[in-house]
């Protein structure tokens, strides 16, 4: 189990079925579809996938040092993008998510993996994540309580591109 929360059209729920396996070092005998580091992902794809002619069976995971723009030419063939938070205090993943959603137009699942904790979930959601693999020693059910966050966002985000001043009545 990936301890996964997914946002769907009916709100957030705990994912009961999730075949993906995060494999930042590729396993010898994979049992299901893999989420790979960018370099491993590139190495494993066929020429047809890299050319955009065929969908990939593997997902990719951005590490903090990776640039979101590196995925630009593969968005059409990727089944899922994960963003790795090695520690929750490293905030680069928020900008990667913003760029993937707001600038590169990624529409598929955007999953936060790694040190993913209840008290950061609302910020991740606002930056465009729609799936959250909660750190395995924590309860995903408990983490659900952190998803809503506060009702007021002054500024803007990936899911709310208009700052509050453009959302006030009449503006």
């Amino acid at each position, binding site marked *: 189990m990936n301890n996964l929360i997914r946002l769907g059209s009916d709100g957030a729920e705990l994912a009961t079925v999730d075949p993906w396996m995060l494999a930042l070092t590729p396993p010898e005998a994979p049992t299901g579809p893999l989420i790979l580091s960018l370099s491993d992902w590139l190495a494993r794809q066929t020429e047809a996938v890299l050319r955009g002619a065929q969908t990939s069976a593997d997902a990719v995971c951005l590490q903090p040092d990776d640039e979101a723009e590196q995925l630009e030419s593969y968005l059409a063939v990727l089944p899922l993008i994960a963003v790795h938070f090695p520690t929750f205090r490293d905030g680069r993943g928020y900008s990667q998510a913003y760029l993937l959603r707001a600038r590169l137009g990624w529409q598929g699942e955007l999953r936060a993996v790694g040190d993913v904790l209840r*008290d950061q979930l609302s910020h991740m959601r606002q930056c465009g994540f729609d799936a959250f693999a909660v750190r395995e020693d924590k309860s995903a059910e408990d983490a659900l309580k952190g998803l809503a966050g506060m009702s007021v966002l002054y500024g803007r985000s990936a899911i709310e591109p208009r700052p509050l001043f453009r959302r006030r009545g009449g503006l």
Partner: protein
Amino acid sequence: MYHYDEYDRALVTERVAQFRDQVARRLSGELSEEEFLPLRLQNGLYLQRHAYMLRVAIPYGTLSADQLRTLASIARDFDRGYGHFTTRQNIQYNWIELEQVPDILERLAQADMHAIQTSGNCVRNISTDAFAAVAADEVLDPRPLAEILRQWSTVNPEFLYLPRKFKIALCSASADRAAVMMHDIGLYLYRDANGEMLFDVMVGGGLGRTPILSQPIRRALPWRHLLSYVEAILRVYNRHGRRDNKYKARIKILVKALGIEAFASEVAAEWLHIKDGPAELTEAEFSRVAANFLPPAYLPQPATDLGYGTALAQDAQFTQWVQRNTHAHKVPGYVSVTLSTKPGGDTPPGDVTAAQMEQVADLAERFGFGEIRVAHEQNLVLPDIAKADLYRFWQAACEAGLATANIGLLTDVIACPGGDYCSLANAKSIPVAQAIQQRFADQTLLQDLGEISLNISVCMNACGHHHIGNIGILGVDKNGSEWYQFTIGGAQGKQSALGKVIGPAFSAAEVPDVIAHLADVYREQRFESERFVDTVARVGLEPFKARVYQREEVRA
């Protein structure tokens, strides 16, 4: 003054509930200290040497009388009866119990205040000139745009886990009283010939271990692009700032490593994507916020006030205080008054008792329009006092112990809380400040020395801004004992400069003597009414070093 609306109130109220829950989870052990740490920092809570310290935000240094009374009530009910005003125009309480913090935050929220982002690796309190909207040399009021920036940077989800803290200051007067050039982003606001508001944007300033003054990144930025341009800088910094070493994580290091041109072109490329989008400010939003900052109902004042003139003529102490502690006002017949928190003796710089806070609140209502400012020099400013009332005001301020006539003088010491409180400190700061104040208690000598800023920090974080003091003192630890290193020639404002180290450090006991020697050299070398900092700039460090260290050799 800015008044909260339903959104502002909802945000602070929900934030209190959120932190109450986080504190409960910490106390139950559900949250580890490591997980709790950034959460408490972003709610202003530090763990110090003896207790928790809570830092409350005072956005751009502006308070109402009732807000100041709330701060007094917190000092009385939750602390030891005083608070400490900081060099970022905030207030800190030093003796706080974790269990009580949610109740304190709730009391703040009821007075339209909060402690959000007064610490942590996020955008901190926006600061500006303590004389904003009243200074005679001001071009336009910076507060509406400061408030717009405050809102935009508050719980902005993408920028809460930056590589390091991030400080923004604005200034819109001909003199820079906001130390703009030592901020991560500094904004000089002005109007062009057509009346359009523009910013000169500075980036990459900061003190700390590697003090650097900021550099211009963008001239004449139209005000409508303020938020998108700051967003572009923050995104480039969030993506590319160093995270491997906390001493190299501020934006100044990134700017230095890339060079200002390369950094500016990164920002320009990022900005191109967002500049004409929804982040562009509107006239309607500016007007909505600016409507909170309309000038108070100033009364026409007589061109000459006989009573005031007589008081000046008859009371030399009053005259001295007027010369030192008042500031020229835009409106004829009014002045701004600085109440010194530095009477010397047993009072650490910036410390104000609950009773004094209430007295200041009363003074602000009785003589002004109920408004108080906090200066980054850790003093309190009452922005609007009629000259006709000034003598009575001064008498009342004397009774409150807040009328020391030393603004800008050597005893107006700027100091961090130091080793008496702070667990980062290498040495004590408060006793050193007090020893200096005692040594220079003689008013004639003090007034004769004129303007000298003296800043004390006792660790590399430089909360006392020692690098930009005309005399800067840095407390250091050498093999378990406390030593004090001197710099001279630092300055804030548009002629900002970083002080230069004069030589080996001194013990605490030697500090007042060292300053006395610096003062002696200045008095011998000064040209007419030249200020200390100008003498240092003209004659260089050598005469000062020679005197200070010659004595060392003789004694050794």
